[in-house]
Every structure is written in structure tokens, then in C-alpha cells.
């Protein structure tokens, strides 16, 4: 998907609310790059992620801080071999198992760099300089990328492009622009305006802004106009579909 292929976004009184998880996820295709909000289990869009299992979506490139927690969410997608590649800072125990069997590729990125790359995608900044990771294997290459089925390392990361600026060396970092974002919010309205709660905010607004198409699950869905403009954490312009987290999956022949 390129920006030009974006579907027209709804706004104003055009409701983005969906009654089922299936409807909310209708634009998520196999092979897609999907940013998933959350940090550990906190603020993770578990319902949306697990619905992808039932919808049969696979071959995914997941961008997320962790790749599942306590056997839930992305850990289930890993188990079912739906994830081709993972980009993030701390994939975790479940990932390590599948990685060691050569089932999934890794792009390891420092946590703040991942956050900033998503933020750049949502801000129309194609690339930027960052000091993080200079003089480490992250910048100079050598971080594990892929193992074979016997657990032998078959691919390491390449050196990243460096750039001098003001007399110092930086890594040239590229914006992330996933096809889809799946995010969790505390409160949302039908125009897609979102409000998060405490540390469940984390990567959620960044994933939503970065993606070409954003699906939000919310604990409570209210009519458009119910949230004071100053209380909105993420404007609805960054959200395309919104669904209550405990909505049913919905039938395939709806």
C-alpha cells in the first residue's frame, strides 16, 4: 500500500464504529506489515490480535515492542506460524523459542529508536539521525536476524548507514510506515478520537499515527462529540475503524 492507495478516510459524523472484530479488521491482509501497540500485556490490543488467528491472516511482519506475553496475543500468532518477521526491542521468551527454530526473522531495534521511527512515519518525516546504538552491533552489524531449523545463526544484521552531523556520528534511521496498526484505548468516539489510560498509552498513539490504516479497540465507545477536544489524546484523523474490545468476532458471511 502506498499513501496514494489509501482508502478515503471517514471523518465528522461518518461513523467509524464496527460491530464485530471481523468488520474492524476487514482491511488486514496476509503479508501485511502490522504495528501493534502495547508494552508487555499493558495496552495491548489482545482482541484484535487474536481475531487475526480466526480470520486466517498470515505471513505478517509485526512491529511491536514485545512479541506476546504470557502465551497471549502475538505469542499465539507465533505459535500458529503466522508471523514472518518481527521488528521491536524486546521480543521475549515465546519469540526466542520460535526464533531458535528458524521460524521467524528478527529486526532488533532499541526501544526509543522504534518509538521514534513510528512517530516519524506518522509525522511525514522519512528519516532522521539518532545517536542511540552508535559503536554497537546495532549500528555496526552483527545482531542475529535468522537461525536455521537446527538453531545455527544463518543471518546477521548489516551495518546501518551512519551520518556525520555537527562533528558527531549518528545512525540514519528510517521512518516506519506499516500497512496497518492495531491499537488499544480506554475510550473512543465514533469519529475515532481516542483517550488512553496511564501506562497503557505507550506505543499505541505512535502505531496509529504511523500506519496507513488504523484499527482501534476500545474499552468504552461513545458517540462523536462526547469527549472534550482537550481530553482527546489521539485525533480521529489517525483512526479508521473502531470497535469495542469485547465485540464478537462476527460471521464470515455477514
Amino acid at each position, binding site marked *: 500500500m502506498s*499513501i496514494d492507495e489509501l482508502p478515503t478516510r471517514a*471523518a465528522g459524523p*461518518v461513523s467509524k464504529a464496527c460491530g464485530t472484530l471481523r468488520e474492524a479488521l476487514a482491511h488486514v491482509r496476509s503479508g501485511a506489515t502490522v504495528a501493534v501497540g502495547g508494552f508487555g500485556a499493558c495496552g495491548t490490543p489482545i482482541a484484535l490480535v487474536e481475531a487475526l488467528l480466526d480470520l486466517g491472516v498470515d505471513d505478517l511482519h509485526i512491529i511491536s515492542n514485545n512479541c506476546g506475553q504470557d502465551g497471549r496475543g502475538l505469542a499465539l500468532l507465533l505459535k500458529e506460524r503466522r508471523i514472518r518477521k518481527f521488528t521491536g526491542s524486546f521480543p521475549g521468551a515465546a519469540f526466542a523459542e520460535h526464533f531458535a527454530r528458524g521460524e521467524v526473522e528478527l529486526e532488533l531495534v532499541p526501544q526509543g529508536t522504534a518509538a521514534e521511527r513510528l512517530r516519524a512515519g506518522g509525522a511525514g518525516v522519512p528519516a532522521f539521525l539518532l545517536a542511540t546504538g552508535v559503536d554497537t552491533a546495532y549500528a555496526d552489524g552483527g545482531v542475529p536476524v535468522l537461525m536455521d531449523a537446527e538453531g545455527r545463526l544463518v543471518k546477521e544484521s548489516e551495518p546501518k548507514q551512519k551520518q556525520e552531523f555537527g562533528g558527531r556520528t549518528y545512525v540514519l534511521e528510517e521512518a516506519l510506515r506499516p500497512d496497518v496498526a492495531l491499537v488499544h484505548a480506554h475510550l473512543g468516539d465514533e469519529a475515532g478520537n481516542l483517550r488512553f489510560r496511564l501506562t497503557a498509552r505507550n506505543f499505541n498513539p505512535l502505531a496509529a499515527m504511523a500506519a496507513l490504516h488504523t484499527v482501534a479497540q476500545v474499552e468504552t465507545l461513545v458517540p462523536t462529540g462526547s469527549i472534550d477536544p482537550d481530553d482527546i489524546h489521539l*485525533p*480521529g*484523523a*489517525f483512526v479508521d475503524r473502531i470497535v469495542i474490545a469485547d465485540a464478537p468476532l462476527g460471521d464470515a458471511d455477514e
Partner: protein
Amino acid sequence: MSESVIARTGRALSREELAARIARDLWPGATVNLGIGIPLLVADHIPADGSIAIHTENGLLGMGRAATGEEIDPDLIGAGKGYTTAVPGASVFDSSISFGMIRSGRLDVTVLGALEVSETGDLANWYVPGGRPGVGGAMDLVSGAREVWVATQHVDRAGTPKLVRQCRYPLTGRGVVTRVYTDLAVFEVRDGRLVLRELAPGVGADEIAAKTEAAFVTDLSG
């Protein structure tokens, strides 16, 4: 503003008529930024139900009508610095988020005025050499918005064409314009060429040819 009103005038469109003509091409769900002058008048011709969301780059999505009397809130202004209102579902945000929205493809259309538009879609609208320097958000908008629509008189007060071969004024953006709405006609920019798509009621193709310096092709189909 109905078709019949426009037809009855039998002359160049008024500023209000031009704004109404532009509003007709917006669609439900569109997010639109309106520059000062004729573009801002477009707001008066779109549905009041908020189905078209107006973005102002100072940090508001869901701008409503201009505020009057007791509605006036000094903390709620548009990009032209006039007091405004917010529609239900409006959100506010800082300037980096506002321009991030523009640059990342969330702004469907920006409607802007022009000093000149070139036949390849270059736009000059920010500076008259020797005048007051100031660019505001014009360069950001033309670089970021998915559609750049120009609203302008076809010729300036001296009768000089504003659609030109090459801009003489400093550019706001090169090859950025996608449509031009004038008081006499509507043009599209297709593959870097200006295409005449529509004539105002009572205006002839020869009048356009006489008042347009820029080369253009004509396609009045559909």
C-alpha cells in the same frame, strides 16, 4: 448556491459562487484545509453536519463556522487568526501533530489562493519580492496534502493572466497543484499538463484562451 443562481449571473463567478463551486467537489469523509481569502469561504458551502472535516494548521480538526458574539473564545481561533467554533468530534493538538497530519497523508485537500500557477502545476503564493516576508504553512500544505486545489481570479486587477507559462514570483511548490478553480473555469493538472475541464456558465473557450498565458489542453468531457 444552486446551479441556477450561477447560470443566471451570466458572467464570471463571484467569490461566493467560486467557493460554492469548489465545495461541490468535496466529499463526505474528506479532511480539508482552507487558506485565507476565497478558500475560507468554502466553509460556508459545505454541510453543517461535519461530514467534511475542516483542519486548521494551528491545531484544530473539526473547525466550525466563525464565532460571533458570545460564542467568541480567545483560545479558539483558525489559521487566519479569526475566532472560530468547533464541531462535535473536534480535536485539538500541538503544531507538530498538526503538520504531521498534513505530511503523513491525512489531509485530503488543501484549498489555497495563488499569485500565479504555471502550466506544469507550480504554485507561487507566498511572497511578492520587496513585500512583507512571511510563509506560514503554505509550503507545508502544498508539499503534504494529497490534493492541492487553487482558488483564484482568472486574471489579476490589471487583467494579467494568473495561469502562466512559468511563475515569476518565488515558488511555494513545484508541480504541486492538482486543480485550479477560477471565476471563469476549472482546470486539472494531469501528468504535468494543464487541462481545461469546465467553463463557468456563459463563458466561452475563446475567452479562456485569451485570458490564459499558460498552455493547456481542453477536455470538457464529464
